[in-house]
């Protein structure tokens, strides 16, 4: 719901979330699957450096979606 109001105001918004079917149902436009409900952009099973690299991968994908012009 937050993402829709932000988009409505003209701010492209990438939604990193664990429950992607909910985001689809509610209507977020740019959905990126999160790592987990408990750590959307993290992974405690990895060592800190690897976890940060993993986090960066998800964030970079979110940024790519911000540039998406389709249907815009």
């Amino acid at each position, binding site marked *: 719901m937050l993402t829709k*109001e932000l988009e409505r105001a003209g701010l492209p918004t990438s939604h990193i979330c664990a429950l992607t079917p909910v985001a689809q149902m509610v209507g977020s436009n740019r959905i990126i699957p999160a790592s987990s409900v408990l750590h959307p952009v993290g992974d405690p099973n990895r060592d800190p450096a690897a976890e940060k690299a993993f986090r960066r991968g998800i964030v970079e994908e979110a940024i790519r979606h911000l*540039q998406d012009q*389709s249907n815009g």
Partner: protein
Amino acid sequence: MDERNLQSNREFKTHRSPVLSDSDNSMLNGVRIHGKEEDKMVGKPLRVVHYLNQFFGGIGGEDKAHAEPQMKMGPIGPGKAVQGAFGDQGKVVATIICGDNYFAERIEDATTEVMNLIKSQQPDVVIAGPAFDAGRYGIACGAVCKRAQSQLGIPAVTGMFVENPGVDLFRKDVYIIETENSARRMSDVISKMVNIACRLVAKEKIGKPSLEGYFARGYLRNEVSDRIGAERVVSMLLAKLRGEPFQSEVPPPKYDRVKPASGLKDLHAATIALVTDGGLVPKGNPDRIQAREATRFGSYSFKDTDGLNPDDYEVNHVGYSPVFVLQDPHRLVPVDVMLDLEKEGIIGKLHKKFYSTAGAVCVVENIRKMGQAIAKELKEEGVSGVILTST
């Protein structure tokens, strides 16, 4: 004789309120009163005031839509059907007539002016319209009814067509009988309106919207069923699978779709902000954001050197276990990675505040308002794109 017996006899001799006919036809039958002769609630007829627009009030058409509120004694036009529906139980003592444009152009003030006239008659009940599909009239009827209820504490009932804007504006506050989009079935509609009004005066329970013919007001009421929930839902499912009609007990919400905003054309010039609904807040939750059904959000600055220090934050959110996020808040709000991207020149700027609320068991309307408020602030601060992280 046993004294206890005497007492119980007395207890059964209760007063019964008038029970009205359930028939859909006009109220010409009047009222059937139950109970013994001495138990009959004989009272004076209810004092009824009727609100009409300039057209139904007989003073003119669009040419008179600017007419100021005026009062005429007794029933006028459709008021005569209202009087007929009340029969002996009510007397339409006065009719207030107001032009649709006069009202629409100054809704609050016009409502007050109309209320002053209504008040002077000391009514027991107000009937407005019905307005059918006339939008300005529907808004006036809804406004008058709502104010009569809150200011005078008396029942007020109206009637409208489903597409009348007055329906969505006032259905939560006022009983609005559903009508067609023309005045063809005026007397049927008036019968239903008067029927509900009388029962409201007698403080009787009003049944389900679909049965009684009014627009659902948004209340969920518990009632006892002859079958347990599991049986009811399975039979609904079987009906659905067979392609048979079924009635959902709780209709699912409908979500609108929003056209995506234009994508960022130049990442190097963009300022990106982080927003979360994972409930990350500074220790002590200074803005007292609620952990569920949140109505508030906060914006929290961070230094571009450090990112988010776990000692400075806590999680306020009933919907997930915050253990991992408390160890490292970047697992929810990726400030560290975004700072790197900014330093490397891949993005123009990271906005040095993150926005936060708790997205647990939220009321859609509250989230909408928060989203609008956050968007406004972000735009004022020159943000061009957002990454929102949810648990």
